Every structure is written in C-alpha cells, then in structure tokens.
C-alpha cells in the first residue's frame, strides 16, 4: 500500500519502468529515464494503459488528456507526483499487481 506521503518521484519512476518494460517486453534496465517513452514504442493507446495502471496503483487522477508517451520516465513520475500534491486526499488502498 502506498500513501501520498511516501510516493516519491523515484518510486513512481521504478513503478513505471517495470510497467513499461512489461508492456514492451523489454529489460527494465534498458529504459533510459531521460528518453521519451514514445521512442520505446509507447503510443497513445499504450499510454492510456500506463495511465490507468498508475491511477489504480496510487489513486491519483491524471488529467484526461495526459499523454505519457511524450514524456520521459522522470517527467511522467513528476506528473504523477504533482497530481498527487494537487489532490492530497488519502489514496485508496490497492493491491499490488
């Protein structure tokens, strides 16, 4: 279980790294945190899969037009943390995948 307090950008980055790697059948270590996810093959469709996973995981409501594909792992993590800070209600507990 995660709460707004202990969800750090680092944690989101690692979470994202594994989801993206799973989705693309890549080794997580191959993902450079400064490269836009689109370069790894994340398009508008897979981007919404990512956003859905993150929302379930930490309870954050990402903007409906959030296109994570145009962001890097680091930038996407910042986006999530910013969204959490804007809506500091206690996140719903969720199961780990």
């Amino acid at each position, binding site marked *: 279980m995660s709460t707004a307090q202990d969800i750090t950008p680092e944690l989101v980055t690692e979470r994202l790294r594994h989801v993206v790697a799973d989705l693309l059948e*890549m080794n997580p270590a*191959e993902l*450079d945190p*400064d*490269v*836009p996810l*689109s*370069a*790894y*093959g994340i*398009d*508008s469709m897979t981007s919404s899969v990512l956003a859905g996973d993150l929302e379930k995981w930490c309870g954050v409501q990402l903007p409906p037009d959030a296109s994570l*594909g*145009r962001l*890097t792992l680091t930038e996407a993590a910042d986006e999530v943390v910013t969204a959490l800070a804007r809506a500091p209600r206690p996140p719903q507990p969720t199961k780990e995948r």
Partner: protein
Amino acid sequence: MNTPTEATATGASAPAHTGREARTIVQALLARTLGPDADRPMVTALDASGERIESLTPVELDLRARALAAALRETGTAGDRVIVPALPGLDFHIGFLGCLYAGMIAVPVPAFRTAARAGTTTRAERLSAICGDCAPCAVLVSTRQDAEEADADLLPGVRWLSVRQDAPAPETAPLPDAAALDPSATALLQYTSGSTGDPRGVVVGHGNLVANQAAMRDRCEVEPGTTIVSWLPFFHDMGLCTAVVLPLVSGATTVTMEPATFVRDPKVWLRAIAAEDDVFTAAPDFAYDMCVNRVREEERAAIDLSTWRVAVNGSEPVRAATQRRFAEAFQVSYFREEVFSPGFGLAECTLAVSVSPSLEPTVVGLYEREALAGGKAVRTTAADEGVELVGCGPVVDAVTVAVVDPATRHALADRVVGEIWVDSPGNCGGYWGREQESAETFAARLADDAAQAGRTYVRTGDLGFVDEGELFITGRIKDVLIIGGENYFPQDAEAVALDAHPAFAQQRAAAWPLGADDRGVAVVVETTVRDGAELAAAVRAAGIAVAKVLPAAVSVYAVPRNKIPRTTSGKIRRRTCAEQVGTGQLVPLAQWSSRRTGGAA
C-alpha cells in the same frame, strides 16, 4: 504587367544598351557591345588569393564567343549538344556563350580531368551517363594542349575543343545563329542534382533564361551599377544564372572565383564583395555558416561589407539561426541582416520561384510542430512547441504558385501544407528525351482544370505553404516521415539532432523513416569528434532530442565528416544514406538507438 519584359519596358531608368529589352542573352550581349560600356570590363575572374586573372569587356567576350562558335560549327550544326565543363577563369563564360552563338545546346557539367586518372571515377561515371543521355558532338576544354592530351577513350566519338580559338575567317557562316536570337529555341540542358544515379537534363529555353532572371533582376533591383560576386559552380542552376545570365539581362558586371577558392578561404569572397559598390550575391545557407566559422573576429573587423545590398540565400533549406549568427558575427563589418534575401527555386523552373525583396527583413515564423505534422501552419509564440521557418519571399513577377494536395490535385488554402506547384514563364520544356516523365512533372493540371483555363504547372516535389503571400518550404514530398498517420519533416529531426550536442554543431545530418513495420526514424550526423566517450554522449543527446519532437523509435549514427552522400549541388541524399547505413557500407563511429540493436527489426 503580364511579363517581366513588359514590366521593365515602362521603366524610364532602363537604357536600351544594357540589354534589358533583349529576348535572349546573346541579344543582350550584342546590345551591350554597342552601348557606352562596350569597352569596360563586364566579367572578371579572380584567382585563389583574390587577384585578378582576367577581365573581358562585352566586345571582347563577343569576339571570343564568335571565334569558338565558328570552330564548333565545323564539328556540328545548330541544335547539337556541347559539353561545357565548369572551366576555370573566364573559360566557362566563353564556352557557354560560344555554344549559344553557334545555335547549339550547352550542357554544363562539373569540371573533370581530361586525362584518365585514378580518383575521378564518380565524375567520369556521371559524365559518361550525361553523354549517354544527350549524345554531344563536342566537349570544351580550356587550352589546345588540354584538347590534344584528352583521353579519347573517355568519350569515344566526341571531339575535344579548346574554348580559346583564333578569330574566325570573315567569310564563315553568319553568327550568331538564328537560334541564339529565338526565345523558343533551347539554350541548355541543366542536369539536375537530384538525379546523380540517373541524370535528367532539364531543357531550358532562351526565353526561360531571360524571363526568369529578368524577374530576379526586378525583385532584387539589380542595376547596371550593380556588381555580382559569385563563387558558385557554373554547372549548377544558381551558379549559371547568377554569374552568366543575370549580368546580361540586368546590365550588371560580374566578379567570379572558383568554388574551391571560397571553400579554402571565404575571406576572398568577402573581400571581393567589399571591393565593389552595390553588390548582389547568391549562396546556399552553409556558405554563411562557413564564413562565420572560418573568418576570425579581428579579420572581420578589417572587412567593410556596407556595400553588400543583396545576399540571396537559396538552394538549401534556409535557417533563421544561420542568418542571425552571420549578421551578429559580421556586424563589425557593417553587414546588415536585411541584406539577406531567402529564396526558393529549382532547375525545372529555370531557377527562381520566390525571393524576398531587396533590403526587407526576412520573414521568420514560429509554427506549432504538432499542427504542422497534421498539415496545418498555425503560428505560436511558445518556442519549445514551435518550428522556426524562414519565409522564402513572395513569388517573383509573372509566377503563380499553387499549394496542392498531391492525392486529389485540389488547390489548398493558405496555411495548409501541400505540394508546391509552379506556373511560370521560366517553366522549362521537360527532361531531355523523356516525354512521359516530363508530362507528369512539367505539365501537371489541377483537378478543377476547367476553372484554370488549361493552366499547367511544374510539380516541385517540395512541400510547403503560403502565409500572407510568403512562401514557406517544409520538406520534400518523398522524404516525409509519417508517424502515427502524421507527417513530420526530416529537416526538423536533423536540425534538432545538430543542436543537441557540441560535437554536432554546424555539421550535416540526414534523417529518414525506418522500415514500415518499425515506424521510427534514423538520423545520421557528421562529426569531427573521435573521442569515444564524447561521441557516446553526443549520439544519446541527439537521440533524446529527436525523440522529444518525433513520437517514435529513434536511432542516431555519428559518422565522419563528408560521409553523408550528397548530390553535386550539396543536397543530402537521404535515401542513399539510408541504404548505405542499412547495408553496412557507411560504418558509424558511434550509435544510439531507443530500440535494442541487432535484435528484432
């Protein structure tokens, strides 16, 4: 004002002796031999250090052209083709005009060694391909010795002839030939740069040359008091028009130097400009970068460029950053940024289609990258979302441009990206001996042909749009990167890659789409850096930068300088480059890919 000729006929300041009324450039030279500057130098050639090699007056040039024409007529007849290499000094001027005086068709080609020697294979191949295409009767060389020593096996059955001939016997056939005074006759074949593998010669008429360069003259106000200073290769459309045709239709004088002189030391060009009053030049974008890189600051301060009035920037994509950088660097030389006149043109239209007027600031627009990818030009103020595009001016007199959807052949509205189609008195007759291909390129018709009264266009293959009368070029139709159904332009990826790391600054790049199933982009960048760690950082930085603007897989390859294949006029051959990387012929110094390399395609 229907035609440029009529437009200038009303100009009271145009004395007849300058040849402004002439219908062919031979007629213009004849007029000039009868005018007040008949015995003043009209063309001057400089050597590698900028010293004068030779000058010719209109009378002298006329005599030399007549002498050569008489000798040519012993070899062939009017309408025959003659190879005119980019000979040094004033030999090209004599050779080119000699062909026209003889009523023959000049075929300008790059300089080559007359004796077969190692290291000239590519040029020899190109030359033999051109000769195979147009079947010339003669090849011109500088001296008699060159003609005697020429390797006959290089071009079997073709006569080698020196441009320097003794004055002809007075009883020879009347010269110039009637064809030289006929605007509908063919003047030259311009072998286009985009076709190094399979040369196509654009059939340029006498009337095309005069109409096109008269329009250039009027747009840039080139006057009898103007001096044109050029280092451009004569076999190139911009070089030929700038150094040979424009001075004849305008009454201006010309100072030329070899391209190698400029490349070795750009100061020679700048000093030649500084030495004249009211100067017109034309050069591609890279030349201005070269001046900034190669001329030291204290040297700039010693050159006075205040007499430079028009610096046409054309034949390559025009970059606003280049112009700004040059203007800043040469402010100490009294250079004014508004001297730049970006333009757009192509050999199929003789040359000029659009050029910015003399001494007007360049129009630079920032357009939304995403909107451009969808084919719409939408202005933005957010620099990080925008693509900076340089306006190539309004079309020159008597030219009409249509921006067309190539699939439906319907004309598009302003600020919509499409293929640029041109209707111009400079539009040429077609490609030599290729009627089918010519009809497709030179006689294109819009879908609503009835409303067009049979108007035909040259299809440029270039993509662009018109915004408030200004023509903007966004890329080549065949080089477009289609990602997720949207169009992206390789120039964009190239510019971003070059800006990403100091190892790539001021270098060349080529970008192209990866295979259809991969939906990504590859970028090759030239560099002089050899340090492995620095190169690894550079290709990664470039890859990330490109990935930020193109939502797709990205591969970046660093290669040594001058390894990116180019056409003779310097245009990047993106598809050839892609093939060379694909086959391993072009070996990168370093590479970076957002996808695993060597694994799945």
